[in-house]
């Protein structure tokens, strides 16, 4: 059969040389296999619960010395967990403590990787469930504090989610203050420091926002004339609105 492809027709004996019982066994075996498969219950899709991530030591051994590649595989595996064979599980039904343990494991394997933080903020943090969203934002906050200069973009995302999705201004301010205090360096743009000002404005804390802008302008860190002008205008507007508020 398959051998004929390898040896060529000349080296094969004719099919007539095959005893009839062998051909009969072949046909019966094939028929029985098809009937058996048809008779057996069809495979059913069962959603398996997401387990907790194993300890970092185990994952390190399992990575066979290539922690970064293994971390990437973990990211994709976790990301695809909602789509197990034949079944689709909404993210909101996942146990977020377990999701966090996997994101943490991935970051432990590859601390320079941004994938787990992006997944935390933009994937798992987008579910319409405030409790789960806050879990993801807190995870991002904790990881931001470990490496603020590398992870500030995800903290900025977290502020936007806290402010616009959760409408939790206290939380947004906490994150914005952390961003302003910790993410200071040549690779971090100035608007990052200014996020707390806008959150304060949204909260109606115009005086505090004005103090922050004034401090920022006096610090000498704003060197771009356009940016300086924008913030000065903003400070004037806040001062005007504060005065009109006092007059009323």
């Amino acid at each position: 059969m398959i051998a004929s492809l390898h040896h060529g027709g000349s080296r094969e004996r004719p099919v007539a040389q095959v005893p009839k019982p062998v051909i009969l066994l072949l046909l019966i075996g094939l028929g029985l296999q098809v009937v058996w498969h048809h008779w057996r219950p069809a495979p059913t899709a069962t959603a398996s619960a997401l387990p907790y991530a194993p300890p970092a030591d185990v994952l390190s051994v399992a990575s066979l010395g290539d922690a970064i590649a293994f971390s990437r595989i973990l990211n994709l595996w976790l990301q695809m967990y909602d789509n197990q064979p034949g079944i689709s599980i909404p993210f909101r039904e996942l146990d977020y403590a377990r999701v966090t343990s996997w994101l943490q494991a991935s970051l432990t394997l590859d601390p320079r990787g941004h994938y787990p933080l992006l997944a935390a903020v933009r994937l798992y943090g987008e579910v319409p469930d405030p409790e789960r969203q806050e879990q993801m934002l807190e995870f991002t906050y904790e990881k931001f504090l470990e490496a603020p200069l590398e992870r500030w973009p995800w903290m900025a995302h977290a502020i936007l989610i806290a402010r616009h999705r959760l409408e939790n201004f206290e939380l947004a301010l906490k994150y914005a203050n952390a961003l302003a205090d910790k993410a200071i360096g040549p690779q971090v743009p100035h608007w990052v420091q200014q996020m707390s000002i806008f959150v304060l404005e949204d909260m109606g804390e115009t005086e505090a926002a004005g103090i922050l802008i004034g401090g920022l302008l006096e610090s000498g860190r704003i060197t771009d004339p356009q940016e300086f002008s924008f913030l000065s205008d903003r400070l004037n507007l806040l001062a005007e609105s504060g005065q009109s508020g006092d007059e009323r």
Partner: protein
Amino acid sequence: MSIETMRHKFGPVAVIARYTALEAFRTRYIWLVVALLLAGLGIALFIGDLAITETRQTQAAITAALLRFAAVLLVILFVTTSVHRDFSDKSVEMMLSLPLPRAGYYLGKLFGYALVAALTAAPLSGLLMFFAPAEAGLIWGLSLLLELVLVCALSLLFAFTFNQITGAISATLLFYLLGRSIAAIQLMAHGPLTNQAQTSTQITTGLVDGLAYLLPDLDQFSRSAWLVYPSGSTGDLVPLLVQTMIYVALLSAVALFDLYRKNF
């Protein structure tokens, strides 16, 4: 059929089976099984140190999965290299020159390799009984034996079919892995993400379904769930036994078809 006739007919088959099994000792295959056993024990103890809860279950599940795959690999390598050696040193031609049908030679080899499979599965099953209930370990071991017998027949077929060891081992491994994952592939093909309105998807799904009809349900064999959540019973082995018998018969028929057409 008298006992004398049976002895005359099946005597050579038993002799070939005996010498095939003896080859496992002569080529020090058995020492590899012992090494695998020790490695399995080491892995289980190492996992026991790492696990913070459900230690026994974690040890049993991970060790069983690793041992099963290692045992399958060992059996594939043993059968393929053994058949290749028979062809290289012309012992096949010598045996076929005797008054022995080709089917007799094939059955002798198959029974011999099945004995080797039993020698491989038994100690591994015994090891797992330390980390899981004895009955669960026994059911897992018997299931592993059936799986290894199926792998023996598969390796034998591809060893006869392909002239090169690399080709034979690769084909056997691919077939085995496909057999283990076909149920998951079938579920994904029918899953919610596939657009069954598209012709290309319908063709792919049809191909996968057709393939599933021709492959054994290997994912049903040697399940870790038996060891972790002792829910298995000997009744679970019946469908596996039937599947093994059907598929070994089918693989034997294909292998014999090839063997009878071979020119030596």
